[in-house]
């Protein structure tokens, strides 16, 4: 038998490791939380790693999961061993093909990181709603509950499907298992070979479609035969459970880990049993071990083979003593009798009894309950609560929920919050860090060190933020004698680390600390000043719990050792030094080994600096003397006192990280949330913020324009309004003619700024005597915070100019209030300035359909939304449907608006005389092409409503409801390139083909940004991306040209950093065009790999090199005898390489293979020059006018 390695990996890697080695074709599409399985496979194939038959699997990324499923189906039909990875919506998109694959009895295994299907809200987290939507297809469903199981059962699935000819869906819990890092025993290639039977592989090949032995599959059948033919597969489903059982046994012989179809754990004479599957079963297992040791007669039944459900095996697995069964489902099926596993068990208990297979002495009580939706933490206390419920005096409740408080329909059962069995003999550590400081990466290394270098078991789970900038991470680490089955968050930790001093006033971290525990703090203060700078509450907790406190100024150490803001190695060294998990010297050696492994190939300099930071750590780590808890620093209020009630009651609780405590009644019943809420979440994450010098400022407003977070703003106002200005509020005379005599201010929102530097970089105004100093410079935030916050509040209170008085040029747009502010997008995001501009121009009358992706996440990930309202309470109305359907979703909005408008017009006409001719004429003939016209129409609608109040009758009432639709409304369809170029292209194309007034904005980052940098059809030639790591071979799809081919679509290609005025013009033209408009907006992105402060500069280089030409195609110009296409950028001024070489995505290719890069870059140069030449020619083409008579005339040749 092979010697097996112990490795620390996550569930995705564990499953993919087997799948990759057992497949020839892998067709995927990225979706959280399964994306990594595809990425691992791609990476391994790119490295030339072979499957057990000596072939490198072919990994292809498709345009959607539907596409991936199609490719999989084809590969299977042609006889290849094939796999795919997916989750949630992606799995749903595969269902049609899955029916076919099953119907054709095809051996196939897919791996699913089970994830919530979007309903009232999207959730990327784990539950079984996706997998349970597949239970009727005819796939075998095999469930894993831990990382080791995901590894082992992946193999069982691949092996069993070949024999059973039933396709397998192997699943494990998204995030809880897919992203949990655990120490496992790795299956070696020899193990895989042992399990895979060559004759069965050959049989699969024999069934392949081939012209050498032609057959036909996929016939259409009719009422006479379909039914019988469908029943012909039954034998295979009847045989399948035994095959799986046999395969599991074979694996057991080989590895010593034996699985059964239903694994019973607990007291042999258990009276109460919980039936469940997935990672929850691990939690229940740990709890049952504890309870049985206490003498309780309880047990659990872990369901592994969910389909085909074997009643016989189920019945045999249950102890005969069972009197009550609780079935826990990690999904919700509203309106059903019960959730699926519950229904299965109810039916199975009855069938077993009727078939004489049951061993139960009594007919048991069976109840069902829901737990853990969307990765809601499932704890031993909840397991205990379920067991307690089974012996409730009044009898157990059925269809209960556990883990929440349902104060509306009272389904929830009580949970004892103090019940905790997390083992004391383990190291339990919780780390609060920033995404950017490297905490998670360091902790993953620690798990590898401890897991792979010691006898200890090791587990890590990571909780991430809903924001992309200033994102907080919480790492939960357990080390100790194994096995660790605790698939739940740590509640009590002996070691709590705070890697950011600022968190102290925002988060209650010491709630986690056990009495006598250790608290490690990254503190900017020397050890003797740490205590007095702690908030009072923290001091009290330290004293009360008798905690030991250690502090280090990690940023100082990082600074001195050239580590920038990365304090990961420093804090990791502190952890090992204090926790004593390993002897110090050994720990440092191992940390350095890990650093070498992580950064070795990326740079000797980086390794050197990390080493230096590790070496400098211990001398800077100090125990903090504990004083008396009498400090004056208070925790900051989560939201301001002025916040609305709902924000205070609900959203503030979520912001504090205590959303788990909110009961059902706190929530809207249908997923509808208020807008205007990001303003209450003052995160104060910037280290430096811009400071304005009014003496130098030329009042161009470019800083406000580029700000991705609407955190620097411009305003003109009356001098008299300055009366109550705070002392440090800056103001100067407005320099332009349009607001002569007014005052002007550029104001920063210090607590909303992310410190991205974009505004400073675009500021053109330099101090002539000292050009280093600009009208905007960055300065440290903390000393400015309070004063600037007061200034900002005053600024917001200043009256705004009337929209109709603002000239809508670049500068003017920045006097319009952004109705998109303080988003959680990455610092320096290249997408959000476009959205913000759109809301400034049209936000008071816009409906937004937003494709899933970055823009839907920073747009609407709880707790708050950046979309907000103007002073009249108007603002963007926003909704996200799916990833793939966004164009159609937006079109639907347009259709509804047009219907409402049409009805309103009809009703106005109908009521005619009673409303007065002037009002009717005014309403129906209103010119709403500009702000003044819209303001006038709003006035008329107000008059109409007043008039209608006095007119009795149903028609008047109907019109009252519809009257507002007489004011122009826009539909904007937003999304990224993954949506527009790939998964949603069919729908987008269709919507563009219709002559409906919708505006499409593609935020083109040229890569799947939200899911982590997978290639899309927008990825340019020569760029490296996941699934194109060697550099994309072909140029990006020219989606603009494709849209122009319709001839009735307005198309603009813009890049705000290159030519902001053109961007502004394009948005206005798109909106004014009465038909479909498409704006393709260059959006720099962290996935391009450079400092986002240079985002606007890179945009300029993209345009200057011709890589991203600027143009506007306006069909209206045809009728004017002008070329419809205007090219707004000139001939290339620099080479494409000059642009490309600044970005990691291109540099990577050059570094890996300079010759290939040279070839691709040359092709990029050619493409660029050809494109510019083609556009230039097009910009010279006028479309000839053809009169009706000319059009109707017979061609000259026909006349003959």
């Amino acid at each position: 038998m092979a010697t097996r390695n112990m490795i620390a990996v996550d569930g995705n890697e564990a499953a993919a490791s087997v799948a990759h080695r057992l497949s020839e074709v892998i067709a995927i599409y990225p979706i959280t939380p399964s994306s990594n399985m595809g990425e691992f496979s791609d990476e391994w194939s790119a490295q030339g790693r072979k499957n057990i038959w000596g072939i490198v699997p072919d990994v292809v990324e498709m345009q959607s999961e539907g596409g991936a499923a199609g490719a999989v189906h084809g590969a299977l039909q042609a006889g290849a061993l094939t796999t795919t990875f997916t989750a949630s919506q992606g799995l749903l998109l595969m269902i049609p093909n899955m029916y076919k694959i099953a119907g054709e009895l095809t051996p196939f295994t897919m791996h699913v990181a089970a994830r919530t299907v979007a309903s009232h809200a999207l959730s990327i987290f784990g539950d079984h709603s996706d997998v349970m939507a597949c239970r009727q297809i005819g796939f075998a469903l095999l469930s894993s509950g831990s990382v080791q199981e995901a590894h082992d059962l992946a193999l069982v699935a691949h092996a069993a499907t070949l024999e059973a000819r039933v396709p397998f869906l192997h699943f494990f819990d998204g995030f809880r298992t897919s992203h949990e890092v655990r120490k496992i025993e790795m299956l070696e290639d020899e193990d895989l070979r042992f399990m895979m039977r060559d004759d069965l592989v050959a049989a699969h090949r024999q069934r392949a479609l081939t012209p050498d032995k032609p057959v036909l599959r996929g016939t259409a059948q009719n009422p006479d035969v379909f039914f019988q033919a469908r029943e012909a597969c039954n034998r295979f489903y009847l045989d399948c459970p035994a095959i799986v059982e046999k395969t599991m046994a074979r694996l057991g012989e080989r590895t010593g880990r034996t699985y059964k179809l239903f694994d019973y754990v607990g007291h042999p004479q258990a009276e109460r049993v919980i039936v469940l599957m997935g990672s929850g079963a691990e939690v229940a297992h740990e709890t049952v071990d504890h309870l049985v040791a206490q003498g309780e007669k309880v047990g659990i039944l872990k369901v592994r083979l969910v389909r085909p459900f074997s009643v016989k095996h189920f019945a045999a697995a249950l102890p005969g003593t069972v009197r009550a069964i609780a079935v826990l489902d990690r999904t919700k099926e509203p309106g059903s009798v019960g959730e699926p596993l519950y229904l299965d068990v109810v039916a199975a208990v009855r069938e077993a009894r009727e078939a004489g297979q049951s061993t139960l002495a009594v007919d048991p009580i069976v109840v069902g309950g829901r737990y853990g939706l969307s990765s809601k933490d499932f704890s031993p206390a909840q397991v205990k609560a379920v067991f307690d419920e089974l012996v409730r005096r009044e009898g157990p409740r059925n269809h209960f929920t556990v883990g929440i408080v349902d104060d509306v329909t009272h389904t929830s059962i009580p949970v004892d919050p103090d019940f905790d069995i997390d083992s004391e003999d383990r190291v339990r550590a919780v780390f609060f860090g920033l995404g950017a400081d490297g905490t998670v990466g360091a902790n993953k290394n620690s798990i590898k060190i401890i897991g792979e270098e010691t006898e200890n078991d090791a587990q890590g789970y990571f909780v991430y933020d809903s924001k992309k900038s200033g994102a907080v991470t919480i790492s939960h680490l357990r080390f100790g004698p194994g096995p660790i089955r605790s698939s739940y968050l740590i509640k009590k930790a002996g070691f709590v680390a705070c890697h950011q001093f600022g968190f102290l006033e925002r988060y209650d971290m010491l709630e986690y600390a056990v009495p006598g525990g250790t608290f490690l703090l990254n503190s900017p203060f020397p050890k003797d000043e740490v205590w007095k700078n702690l908030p009072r509450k923290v001091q009290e907790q330290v004293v009360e719990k008798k905690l030991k406190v250690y502090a280090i100024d990690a940023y100082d150490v990082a600074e001195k050792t050239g580590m920038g803001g990365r304090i990961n190695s420093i804090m990791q060294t502190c952890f090992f030094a204090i926790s004593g998990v390993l002897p110090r010297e050994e720990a440092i050696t191992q940390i350095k080994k890990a650093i070498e492994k992580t950064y070795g190939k990326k740079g000797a300099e980086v390794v050197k600096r990390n080493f230096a930071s590790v070496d400098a750590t211990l001398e800077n780590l100090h125990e903090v003397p504990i004083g008396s808890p009498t400090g004056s620093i208070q925790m900051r209020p989560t939201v301001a006192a002025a916040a609305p009630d709902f924000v205070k009651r609900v959203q503030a609780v979520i912001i504090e990280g205590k959303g788990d405590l909110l009961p059902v009644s706190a929530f809207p019943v249908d997923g509808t949330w208020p807008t205007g809420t990001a303003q209450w979440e003052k995160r104060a994450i910037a280290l430096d913020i811009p400071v304005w010098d009014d003496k130098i400022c030329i009042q161009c407003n470019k800083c406000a324009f580029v700000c991705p977070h609407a955190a620097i703003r411009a305003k003109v106002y009356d001098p008299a309004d300055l009366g109550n200005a705070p002392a440090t509020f800056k103001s100067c005379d407005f320099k332009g003619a349009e607001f002569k005599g007014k005052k002007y201010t550029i104001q920063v929102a210090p607590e909303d700024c992310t410190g991205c530097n974009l505004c400073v970089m675009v500021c053109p105004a330099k101090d002539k005597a000292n050009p280093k100093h600009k009208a905007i410079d960055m300065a440290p935030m903390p000393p400015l915070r309070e004063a600037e916050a007061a200034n900002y509040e005053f600024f917001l209170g200043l009256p705004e100019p009337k929209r109709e008085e603002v000239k809508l040029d670049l500068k003017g747009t920045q006097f319009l209030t952004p109705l998109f502010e303080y988003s959680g997008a990455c610092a320096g995001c290249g997408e959000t300035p476009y959205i913000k501009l759109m809301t400034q121009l049209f936000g008071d009358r816009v409906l937004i359909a937003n494709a899933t992706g970055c823009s839907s996440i920073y747009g609407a990930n709880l707790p708050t939304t950046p979309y907000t309202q103007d002073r009249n309470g108007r603002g963007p109305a926003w909704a996200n449907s799916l990833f793939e359907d966004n164009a159609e979703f937006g079109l639907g909005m347009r259709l509804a608006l047009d219907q409402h408008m049409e009805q309103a017009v009809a009703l106005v006409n109908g009521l005619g005389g009673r409303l007065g001719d002037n009002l009717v004429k005014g309403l129906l003939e209103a010119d709403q092409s500009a702000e003044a016209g819209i303001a006038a129409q709003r006035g008329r609608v107000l008059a109409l409503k007043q008039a209608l109040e006095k007119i009795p009758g149903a028609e008047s009432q109907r019109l009252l409801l519809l009257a507002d639709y007489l004011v122009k409304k826009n539909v904007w369809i937003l999304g990224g390139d993954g949506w527009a170029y790939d998964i949603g292209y069919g729908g987008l194309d269709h919507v563009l083909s219709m002559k409906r007034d919708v505006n499409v904005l593609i935020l083109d980052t040229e890569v799947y940004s939200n899911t982590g940098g997978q290639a899309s059809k927008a990825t340019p030639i020569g760029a490296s991306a996941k699934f194109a790591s060697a550099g994309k071979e072909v140029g990006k799809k020219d989606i603009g040209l494709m849209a122009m081919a319709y001839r009735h679509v307005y198309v603009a290609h813009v890049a705000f950093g290159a030519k902001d005025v053109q961007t502004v013009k394009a948005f206005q033209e798109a909106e004014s065009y009465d038909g479909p408009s498409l704006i393709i907006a260059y959006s720099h992105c962290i996935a391009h790999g450079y400092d986002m402060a240079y985002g606007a500069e890179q945009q300029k280089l993209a345009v200057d090199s011709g890589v991203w030409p600027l143009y506007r195609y306006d069909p209206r110009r045809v009728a004017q005898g002008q070329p419809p296409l205007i090219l707004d950028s000139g001939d290339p001024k620099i080479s494409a390489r000059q642009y490309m070489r600044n970005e990691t995505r291109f540099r990577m290719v050059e570094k890996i293979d300079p010759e290939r890069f040279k070839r691709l870059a040359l092709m990029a140069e050619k493409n660029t020059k050809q494109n510019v030449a083609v556009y230039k020619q097009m910009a010279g083409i006028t479309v000839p006018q053809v009169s009706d008579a000319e059009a109707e005339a017979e061609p000259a040749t026909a006349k003959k």
Partner: protein
Amino acid sequence: MDLSTTYLGLKLTHPLMPGASPLVDDLDTVRKLEDAGAAAITMHSVFEEQISREQVASFVHTESHGQSFAEALTYFPSPEAFHLGPQEYLEHLRKVKQAVSVPVIGSLNGYTTGGWLEYAKLIQDAGADALELNVFSLGTNPQESGAQMELRTVQMVQAVRKAVRIPVAVKLSPYYTSLAHFATKLDEAGADGLVLFNRFYQPDIDVEELQVRRQIHLSSSAELPLRLVWLAMLSPKVKASLACTGGVHTAIDVVQSVMAGAHAIQLVSSLLKRGPSHIATLRQELAQWLEEHEYHSLRQAQGSMNLEACPDPQVYSRANYMLVLQSWRDSH
């Protein structure tokens, strides 16, 4: 005509070769240079500081986004072959070495003591026949004296010399207070060759945008005299072989350089202007000139006009300066 010469111990059929420049970026151009008869190929410099900075920038600006957000633990693929070290340079050097049969001279601009040594070894291991150390750094640190700077360089050359087997040349700038002394020290430190002189990017002030930009102009023959002076000065004083670079455009420029003491001539601007074939042209014109002037070999002319051999050595030295000053005074 026998144009053969020995540079860095390498026996060359003639002294003409491309100098460190982007000319060698492209393998086709490298082949063209060899076809045109280049006696050796000098690689462009690998800059340790640039590599370190790119590593750190990637660490700070790219890596820092990973492990931050649940949906995207990374934003880039992590191909095995992706190294942010000098591998790209070394790989190119290997390819150049494979592509040509003439000697290939690697070139290095180090930044730290460790870096000079490590990179020098890597360049040797990648197959370079010799190594040129591009030692230019501006003395911007007011705390460091000229002597300290020079000592640092000398020690570095000593260390590199010890660490590698291949010959080592040092490419200098003319900006030393006592170049003769410094060059002698380098000679003693074991430098096998001295390359005179480096040319640098020059700052250009954009008066509209108030920005400083970098620029580099191609050389002209007007820059040659400075090289001639120092070739002539050092030629009799040092054991190291000498290369002239910067300002050689015509056959006469070549003859002058050789007469002043150059063993090798590195061409950049003239090749960028006229293409690789200019090497062949110069070689032919050089041979022709020597023949017309009845030289039997290049070696006969080598150093014939250096400080020791030339008929009027004072013209090279201070007298020249004094005469100029006197004439200036006379005119006022």
